[in-house]
Structure formats: C-alpha cells, structure tokens
C-alpha cells in the first residue's frame, strides 16, 4: 500500500517568520487536498536561508508557541519543516522538525555546516551531532539537510539503521551555467539522489526551494527518486511547485530482494576499520 507525499517547492521570505508561517498553511492545505500523508518543506523554510545575523533574531525553541500552528496543522497530515532551533543551552541549529498528530515527533539538526565559497553556515550555527532515524506512517526515515546529503556517510548510516526513506530538505543555490550540461548544481544533486537511491535501495526525497536571496537563485528541481533508481516525480527548475509522489514499501521490498546490498553490508568491518584508524576500542560481538 503506497503512501502519497507532497513536496512544497516554495520561496520563503528571509527573516519573516510570521509571513512564512502563513505561506506554510497554504501549502499544507494544498497538500491535504492532493491527498498527501506528509508534506515536506525545504531547509529553513520558516525563516529563509542566508540569515546572517538574523539567525539569532528568528531562532526559537522546538516547543516555542510560534510553531504551534504547524503542530496544530499536523493533525491533518504530517509536516516536515525547517527552522532555526535555539537549544536548551542556547546554541543555534539549522533544524528540520517532523510534526505528526499535533506533536513534534522528530528533530534533526544539520550536522555538516558548509563554511566555504558562498556558504557561511559555520559562522552562525552550531552543528548537530547525530543521525537518528524515526518512524512515521511512510516508514523508517532519516533526514539529511542539504550539505548532510553530500557526505556519503549520512545516507549510508540511515540505510544501515533501517531507513527506507531519506528526506533531504535543501536550500541549494543554482550555479554553473557552462554549455553542454545541465545547471551545474542540478547535475551534481541528481547524480547523488539516483546513486543513493539505487545503491542503498531507499527513497530519496530531495526538497529544494526556489526564489532569490541577495542575488543568489535557488534552483528548485525537487525530486522523489525510487529505490530502483527511477525518478518517480520531479518538479520544474526555478518555479514554485507542489510535487506529489508515492512512496511504495513494496517496491523497497522488491528492490532489496533483487539487490540485497544492504542485507550483505558489513557494518562491523566498516566500524573496525574506522575504529582502528582512530585508535578507538572496538569489540566485535558475533
């Protein structure tokens, strides 16, 4: 029995949380009308991405009353949305929450904060320190926020922990306009999505935003790639779009039967290898 999900390829306003909340409500209503069980928003969808000093101004605790409308709306369908989380010890994180039946059921803090080139995440935010999976109606899921996905170990850890879905909310700036190819960033992302989906036999739900911030264009092109490597659904580039697609657990099962890479995966060897290199103790328990 497949589950319908929606991707809100939207254009959040920079630092205008109230307006972005209203915008979320509209997309949530549209996703509900489309029969989706989950709607996924891009990275920092409630705040905008290139916040700079605004990061501290818009930050809030995960249980802050200003996020209540999202929690309330999740009684109708699950919602995955991005915000700046101020932790109990007052650190700022790029966070993606998953709300279901009126409650926040999972939060992922972006681990890999790009601080090079056009990125400055590490100046304004602290890193997350875990990749935890969680369960919802669609199956076991892991969240990789933008740069998290570029690190091969992230989807690997999720798949090894039993995830069948990797949600990848992003704020990816479009760049690379050389002749003879796709938009440079699009090419890299699509390669990643298909590779991870096929070789980890998971659904990769790539959720990118659109619109501009200070001259930088986010390119959209959100897509749902199935564990057989096929693109189940793809949104246009640069335009807003509500992308609808299906997550089919049967397809995961079929692909994993045909291609049991995960079953045969030797995490113990991986762990022993890394532990040995880092000089950490490792006991193999058979």
């Amino acid at each position: 029995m497949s589950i319908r999900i929606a991707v809100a390829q939207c254009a959040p306003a920079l630092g205008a949380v109230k307006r972005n909340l209203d915008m979320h409500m509209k997309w949530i209503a549209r996703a509900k009308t489309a029969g989706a069980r989950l709607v996924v928003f891009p990275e920092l969808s409630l705040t905008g991405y290139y916040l700079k000093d605004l990061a501290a101004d818009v930050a809030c605790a995960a249980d802050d009353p200003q996020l209540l409308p999202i929690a309330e709306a999740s009684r109708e369908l699950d919602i995955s949305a991005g915000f700046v989380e101020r932790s109990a010890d007052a650190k700022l994180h790029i966070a993606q929450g998953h709300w279901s039946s009126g409650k926040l059921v999972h939060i992922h803090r972006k681990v890999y904060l790009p601080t090079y080139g056009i990125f400055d995440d590490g100046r304004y935010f602290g890193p997350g320190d875990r990749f935890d999976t969680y369960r919802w109606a669609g199956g076991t899921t892991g969240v990789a926020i933008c740069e998290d996905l570029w690190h091969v170990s992230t989807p690997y850890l999720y798949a090894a922990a039993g995830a069948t879905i990797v949600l990848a909310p992003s704020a990816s700036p479009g760049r690379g306009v050389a002749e003879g190819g796709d938009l440079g960033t699009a090419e890299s992302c699509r390669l990643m999505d298909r590779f991870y989906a096929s070789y980890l036999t998971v659904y990769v739900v790539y959720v990118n935003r659109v619109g501009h911030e200070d001259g930088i264009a986010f390119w959209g092109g959100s897509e749902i790639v199935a564990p057989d490597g096929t693109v189940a659904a793809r949104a246009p580039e640069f335009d807003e779009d509500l992308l609808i697609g299906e997550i089919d657990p049967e397809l995961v099962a079929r692909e994993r039967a045909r291609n049991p890479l995960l079953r045969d995966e030797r995490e113990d060897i991986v762990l022993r290898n890394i532990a040995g290199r880092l000089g950490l103790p490792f006991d193999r328990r058979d």
Partner: protein
Amino acid sequence: MTSGLARTGVIRPDPKDPSPLRIDEVLVRKMLVLFIRDEIAKARLRRAVVGVSGGVDSAVTVALATEALGPANVLGLFTPYRTSSGESHDHALELSKKFGFALEEVPITEQVDAYFAGVKEKVDKVRVGNKMARERKSIEYDRSWPDGIVLGTSNKTELLLGYGTQFGDMACGINPVGDLYKTQLRELALSIGIPERIVRKPPTAELWEGQTDEGELGFTYADADLVLYHMVDRRLRPAELVEHGFDAQLVTRIRELVRRNHYKRVMPLIAKLSLRTIGHDFLYPRDWEAD
C-alpha cells in the same frame, strides 16, 4: 537542456581553447530574467532604469529588463556628450524600437562643460571621462525615483579589471550581467536577438574620441576573458597559467589590475570603533524580510 552525460573530459587551461567560456544561453537568460523580476519586487519597486549607450552590455541589460518587467516598466536613457557618435544614437534607438521600451535622450554636454569651465588647472581626459560617467549615473538615479531601480551594466571582465568609474558606470541597485565575461555576454546578446552590428562593433566607453576598450587596455577581451576565467573561476595561480602557455606579461598585467582595483568592488571601509559596526559585524542580508 542537454543530458548531464554530455559534458565529459577535463577543462584544461589552454590559451588556444576558448570553449570553457561557453555558456548555456537559454538557462542564463531564464536565471537573469527571474533575478531582475524577483530582486526588484523584493526592493518593493516595479520599474527599471537603464543607461542605454548603444553598446552590447546595456543592450543585453535593457532587453532582459523588458522581458522581466514588460517594456512599459523599463526606461532607457541615452545621455550623449558632444563626442558621442551618431552610430551610438542609432543603435540605442534601434534597441528601443526592437524591445519596445521608452528611450529618453538627456544630453550631458552642457553641465559637464560648465563644470570644467570653472576648473583652472589643465584637466586630464580621464577626469572628464569620470565626470561624464558620474553625471550619467546621477541622471539615471534621478529618473528612477520613486519606484524604479537602476540596473547595472558592468560585466565581469570590466568589474574584475576595474575598467570602470567608481560611483559612475559601476553604480547600480542590482546588476544582472556582472557575472558574465564580455565574451559570454556577446554570446548571450546574439541569442536574445541583439542585432549583430551592435554585438560585433569594437567596445568603447566613448569618453573621448577614438577611445576603444581594447586599445586602452592593451589586450583583447577574448584573451583577457580566458585568463580571468582560469584565474578566477578555476582558481589557477598566475604561475600555473604561464606554465600552460599563457603569455606571462598578459597574465601579470591582468592579475595586477584585478588586485589594484579591488577597492572598486567592495563597500567603502568603515573605521571599526564600537562593539558592533556596519559591514564588519553587523551583518544582515539585503533582502531582510523581503518577499
């Protein structure tokens, strides 16, 4: 768009191979039209003002603006000095007819000459040129009031070489063409229907008679663009470029122009005194709370 598999092979620095400069014009056009539309809306403005000189840079800028905003929301300003050529005037007019935007002619001879008439010492032609560029820009800003933005027309080559007048032709609210080398801008120009005679004529700032960019710079845009591409975009060091066969003198000269004129590309320095200083550690995005 072509398949991602189409691009194979390594981009090598080669003074005889200009192909790395080629762009996907369809994609670039789309991105720039969206940029103009979106960033003007974020500034809560609706019109664009473009100084149309008859040259290719302003031709591309004004054509993209008409596509983004509709011709009714674009004002072209042709601001001739007495040394400006009749050909420039014809080309500006031709663009206005082709793309449908209003073109106003505002001569600047009187005010520029009046100003220098009061100057006692001998005036270098560069000073007159700079004054003209700033005069033009002050008119563009005036005509942009109250609901327009001044679009920049400085391309990446000019910006990197510092071949422009600070607060003159370099001044603008937003610049759609500043990440395109001259060579790339010409390619884009042809693909969006800028007449070939405008694209192919020798670039000139027309600040004095007989001036051409390439004559004044002492090298061609084609050569400069390839050096800049490998130096800036691909991050090769000057010595590496020379090793790959680029002319050592050219590379050194270009590197020095880029360095020496960097001040033109950044905001003026503010003396740091307080605990929080504009530009140093008071860092808010320009599109702050903008829709």
